[in-house]
């Protein structure tokens, strides 16, 4: 594992892996969509249940992205490894994007189901806060001029956020039960029939691989950018 902390070795591995990951992403998303579009309408939600296959995996991926970002931040902070810093930095915009995608599809789903584009539901609200956490992280990276300092400051923020995230999640859930009537429990719950479960599973895997492919690509770009800058400085 530590072998690949070397940027050159990482580049080689990442380049070798990426086509396979991208191919698997296309296949999984294709299969998931093909299956997902053919599921029978839900008895309560009708055709709109199909939005679940776009929405739920986006939400899962967004949370996973924060976990990975925080883990990379911890590695970067403890072992002072630049590659981990770059990995954390590269994960943030993707995580923000998946969070925004989750909010957007949630909103599109909410319109027919709840009759409103936005309801102050626990999950929606905590996701909005997650989006702000991502934005703050990205803003801090961009605001600090010195790159090593920016990396460490952002890493501290990511970790503080990671500690606080479960509390925020809990408080928002607590808050929605306090505001009874505004929260609407989603139909279905854990009792999802197999016919829905399979496409959901495929889509979740597809989203995850999509994230990983894009993540690797962004890390590669960051490494190459850095090298290009070094070459320019040496040549100039």
């Amino acid at each position, binding site marked *: 594992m530590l072998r690949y902390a070397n940027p050159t070795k990482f580049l080689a591995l990442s380049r070798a892996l990426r086509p396979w990951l991208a191919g698997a992403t296309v296949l999984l998303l294709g299969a998931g969509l093909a299956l997902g579009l053919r599921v029978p309408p839900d008895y309560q939600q009708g055709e709109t249940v199909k939005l679940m296959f776009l929405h739920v995996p986006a939400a899962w991926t967004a949370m996973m992205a924060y976990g990975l970002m925080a883990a990379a931040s911890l590695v970067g902070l403890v072992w002072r490894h630049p590659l981990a810093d770059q990995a954390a930095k590269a994960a943030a915009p993707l995580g923000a994007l998946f969070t925004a995608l989750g909010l957007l599809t949630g909103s599109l789903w909410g319109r027919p189901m709840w009759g409103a584009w936005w309801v102050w539901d626990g999950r929606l609200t905590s996701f909005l*806060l*997650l989006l*702000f*956490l991502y*934005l*703050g992280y990205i*803003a*801090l990276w961009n*605001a*600090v*001029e*010195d790159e090593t*300092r920016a990396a*460490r*400051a952002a890493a*501290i*923020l990511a*970790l*503080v*956020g990671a*500690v*606080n995230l479960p*509390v*925020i999640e*809990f*408080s*928002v859930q*607590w*808050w929605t039960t*306090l505001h009874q009537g505004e929260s609407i429990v989603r139909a279905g719950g854990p009792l999802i029939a197999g016919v829905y479960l399979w496409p959901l599973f495929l889509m979740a895997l597809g989203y995850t691989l999509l994230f990983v492919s894009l993540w690797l690509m962004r890390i590669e770009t960051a490494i190459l950018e850095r090298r290009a800058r070094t070459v320019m400085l040496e040549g100039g």
Partner: protein
Amino acid sequence: MSALLLRDVRLAARAGGSAMLALAFFAGVATLVPLGVGAELPRLARIAGGVLWVAAVLAALLALDRLFQADFEDGSLDLLALSPLSLEAVAAIKASAHWLATGLPLTLLSPLLGVMFGLPPRALLALFVSLLLGTPAVSALGAVGAGLTLSVRRGGLILPLIVLPLLAPAVIFGAGAVLEVLDGIPNGALGLLGAFSFCACVLSPFATAAAVRLNLGS
């Protein structure tokens, strides 16, 4: 330790310091709300907890970006880092001074504003206690943000973006404590708020010190 605390509180309390500004801001925001949502007291009482909590958080944020900045610019932060006091202790003292200068006055002023919002006496007490319990968390977590944005020019602009999502639990439980009294349904908000505040105050100085340390750059 107490010398540093006293110095910071004195700096904040003197004319033009952050304490008066924060208080004025708090009262100003609270005055604008009835103008925006209408003056019926029952409705105002209903939202008072939330409004005053949000106003208190914003007012506390206002003074945060100067928490380390002034000492950073004139070099006294370097001296503090070299002093036998650990940077964690310095961070905790700075956050405490910020609380004494903003959180505590805001808390003391809150019953007055609560009366103007038509809160019954028992809800006033809940508001007061919730601010007393919760505003230390605002100062502690805010100090983390102040440390992180220390070397950022105009760091005051991204500081709220960083800190506000982290403070969501405080606002939720704080406003919940007032609603508990208004609705008469026990919800345990004060206990949760106390737990959140306690954890924030204990853990934050470490993150703040780490943030300050990296910005002092050695």
